[in-house]
């Protein structure tokens, strides 16, 4: 039986790798559920924005009238974690996106979409994350964005350490908002999801 105090964490389920996040969140003890409607958003203590196609997710957020409710919850302190497309959706400014593409009123940062290149440039590499013990995370980058600039109050948690993109910022946190360029949900390493669930609990 689930512990009654397990936080309820929604995964924005308009498009993308929703199932992988639901599985990872469940495995670290959260009550995970998909969120596609404003009413479903009301019931969550935290929200994950999955990997996917950010232009599509941005469009669907508007069409199905989720932008305002999510912005309101973020303003009220809702913990939100975004991976890849989710990072783009949490950025206040997006480079190389569509002109009509809009994220939530989220992290004070500028991200560059598809910054590492096209799919043939997608890669796996170890990334050290501040606040996560036990060695580097095995990070999977798929047509991934990177963080170009961060504003005041944004903590850089991780950067690429090797290869042509060494030094690029790929994990950040601002208060209750967390974002990574990569996809921990595609690996069996649950530390980042545990970190987020702990953030929701506190």
């Amino acid at each position, binding site marked *: 039986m689930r512990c009654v105090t397990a936080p309820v964490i929604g995964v924005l389920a308009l498009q993308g790798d929703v199932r992988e996040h639901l599985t990872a969140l469940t495995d670290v003890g959260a009550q995970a559920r998909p969120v596609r409607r404003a009413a479903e958003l009301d019931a969550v203590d935290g929200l994950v924005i999955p*990997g996917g196609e950010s232009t*599509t997710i941005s469009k669907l957020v508007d069409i199905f009238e989720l932008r305002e409710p999510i912005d309101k919850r973020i303003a009220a302190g809702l913990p939100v974690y975004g991976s890849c497309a989710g990072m783009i959706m949490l950025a206040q400014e997006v480079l190389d996106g569509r002109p009509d593409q809009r994220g939530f009123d989220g992290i004070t940062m500028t991200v560059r979409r598809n910054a590492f290149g*096209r*799919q*043939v440039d*997608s*890669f*796996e590499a170890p990334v050290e994350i501040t606040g996560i013990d036990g060695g580097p995370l095995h990070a999977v980058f*798929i047509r991934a964005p990177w963080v170009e600039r961060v504003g005041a109050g944004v903590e850089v948690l991780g950067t690429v350490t*090797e290869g042509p993109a060494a030094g690029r910022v790929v994990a950040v946190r601002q208060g209750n908002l967390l974002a990574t360029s990569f996809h921990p949900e595609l690996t069996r390493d649950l530390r980042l999801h545990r970190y987020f669930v702990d953030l929701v609990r506190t």
Partner: protein
Amino acid sequence: MSETTSPNPDAGPVVGTARVKRGMAEMLKGGVIMDVVTPEQAKIAEDAGAVAVMALERVPADIRAQGGVSRMSDPDMIDGIINAVSIPVMAKARIGHFVEAQILQALGVDYVDESEVLTPADYANHIDKWAFTVPFVCGATNLGEALRRITEGAAMIRSKGEAGTGDVSNATTHMRKIRQEIRRLQTLPTDELFVAAKELQAPYELVKEVAESGKLPVVLFTAGGIATPADAAMMMQLGAEGVFVGSGIFKAGNPAQRAAAIVKATTFHDDPDVLAKVSRGLGEAMVGINVDDIPVPHRLADRGW
């Protein structure tokens, strides 16, 4: 997801792994991939909310109508499409035509579809897809075919359906068949899995993995004959993880509106109220052809094995 092909986690950056290839398809889930033959069509698809576009020289309905040998698109056209949109661009290569695939990889396409819609280049062998950095999607009509393609390195599977018809019945058959065969594997004791592998003409390890997980180790989309929001939603309810739409959009009366409606129907595939709303006022769907009216030698789903 296969762990055996993943690199040493302590090594530096590695490209072209099974995980990044299969992972790319995971990111397309719940989305619609649309066939386009020009940069203008690609823009319409992106505006409508497509998660990717598939570049080809003629949509299947035209290939069917015009006949002749159908090949990979002109590289200029593919470049034009890549430059026109920011979403992923896929492109089709002929079955077994590994040089078309090499060219597509060099052009920077994000996924190659080794497709029965084009005229096969090799009637014995499919492409060795492990040899590429770019990932591949392949069609399948049943589980054995899907597993053989995965064995050859496919990182995503789609039902074949009968492309260019606007008749969804074959896609339905293929989706049901694949799911049914997976469910059957789940009921078999270990000793019978060896025979199942023989019957499926697929490696035992892969068959065992599917029996244990109850799903393919790669993403399963649907394709072939999808022409309406209701078609897309039905395929999603039958277990597809996303939708390819070929001729169904640009052979219809109002492509932009229909494309957007299919995107919405795919996301809310299980909500009839939303489906009713998005199905209104779309104008004329593609006229279509009944699969039964197509002579057997002209059926595309029978290409590949």
